[in-house]
């Protein structure tokens, strides 16, 4: 059994998971229009830190926020592994910042970086679950982080994928996505002792990754990969046991349509959805971690599913039991 024993979120909406949850519940969004943040780039709507952040210190701060409640053996401990979820890392370098984070905490294990496009944050948690279930480590610190840049924004603009206004997932007049930045950490353990300070506690029970195998930059029209992921994580579970589905909801024409089809095919169309991109934008490598945490915080004594799809036709989903 793989349990969460700590988590944290740092975003333009605040520091700490609770601060971010309160912001969402109060209807505050981090989305703003930026006209001069990056040279040559057309005006874009995004959720960015007021002061540009450095990748490694931001990740370190996020990890520190997640481990305060539990005395986790990290320094010199072979039992703990770091898993970093990011798409563009620190100025296009992914392995160097991962090593810097690990070195900062004095951890002797090689870090693992998951770079599976937008699904990275969920895939990183699945990787953690597998490593822990296989007995290779006892604890996994999953950090998701991406910082926006001229590189990324210009690229998405070349796809004409960005909405000039705050995004409207699943709305008939949706115009595309907004980008965002954040750092979030979720800590998993197989150590059987759950301290009483950890409550509510979440169990990561299932995870699945499937490729649509149809097109690199557009999802399958039948939501095939996403549907397969949902069916896998729902095995042995019925829809009425799921309190909330954390959808991807990027507000692009095709992603939202595909996700809707996949959810209907999986019988989850009536389950309430957690749609977070209007608050945080698309935080890329951080999305899977940020959105899992916030989704789980809203479900007591029930179960949640977090699903994502990404570039390269990849889809991923996890199911957590929240008690």
């Amino acid at each position: 059994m793989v349990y969460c024993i700590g988590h944290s979120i740092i975003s333009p909406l605040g520091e700490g998971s609770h601060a971010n949850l309160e912001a969402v519940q109060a209807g505050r969004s981090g989305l703003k229009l930026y006209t001069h943040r990056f040279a040559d780039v057309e005006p874009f709507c995004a959720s960015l830190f007021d002061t540009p952040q450095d990748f490694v210190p931001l990740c370190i701060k996020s990890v520190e926020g997640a481990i305060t409640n539990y005395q986790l053996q990290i320094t010199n401990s072979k039992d703990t592994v770091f898993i970093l979820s990011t798409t563009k890392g620190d100025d296009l370098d992914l392995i160097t910042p991962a090593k810097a984070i690990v070195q900062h905490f004095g951890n002797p294990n090689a870090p693992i970086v998951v770079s599976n496009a937008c699904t990275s944050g969920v895939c990183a948690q699945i990787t953690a679950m597998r490593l822990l279930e296989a007995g290779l480590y006892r604890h996994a610190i999953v950090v998701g982080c991406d910082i926006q840049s001229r590189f990324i924004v210009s690229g998405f603009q070349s796809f004409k994928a960005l909405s000039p206004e705050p995004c409207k997932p699943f709305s008939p007049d949706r115009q595309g996505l907004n980008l965002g930045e954040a750092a979030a950490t979720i800590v998993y353990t197989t150590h059987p002792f759950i301290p009483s300070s950890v409550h509510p506690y979440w169990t990561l029970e299932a995870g699945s990754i499937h490729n649509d195998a149809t097109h690199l930059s557009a999802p399958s029209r039948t939501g095939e990969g996403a549907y397969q992921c949902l069916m896998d994580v729902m095995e042995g579970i019925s829809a009425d046991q799921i309190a909330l589905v954390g959808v991807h909801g990027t507000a692009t024409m095709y992603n939202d349509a595909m996700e809707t089809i996949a959810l209907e095919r999986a019988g989850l169309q009536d389950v309430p959805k957690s749609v977070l991109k209007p608050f945080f934008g698309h935080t890329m490598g951080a999305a899977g971690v940020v959105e899992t945490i916030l989704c789980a915080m809203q479900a007591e004594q029930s179960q949640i599913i977090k699903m994502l799809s990404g570039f390269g036709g990849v889809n991923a989903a996890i199911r957590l039991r929240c008690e």
Partner: protein
Amino acid sequence: MEQLIEQLKAQIIVALNFEDMTPADIDTDAPLFGEGLGLDSIDALELIMLMDREYGIKLADPKAGKAIFQSVRTMAEYIQANRTK
């Protein structure tokens, strides 16, 4: 116009990585999408960028591209009418 069409064919081959093709292989009036060259949505975006870079034409609405990119000829006609370079 014929010169523009030939130039455009050569530019399309480079921009869309049709390494095994020459301009003579491209039918001026054949559909670019679906049948014909079988281009996809990323190719459409790349053609939009080509028009900006080579001819100074900015296409704000990608949906307008459908009519413009019917064939090499319709694309050349549009460029002829709207080029700023």
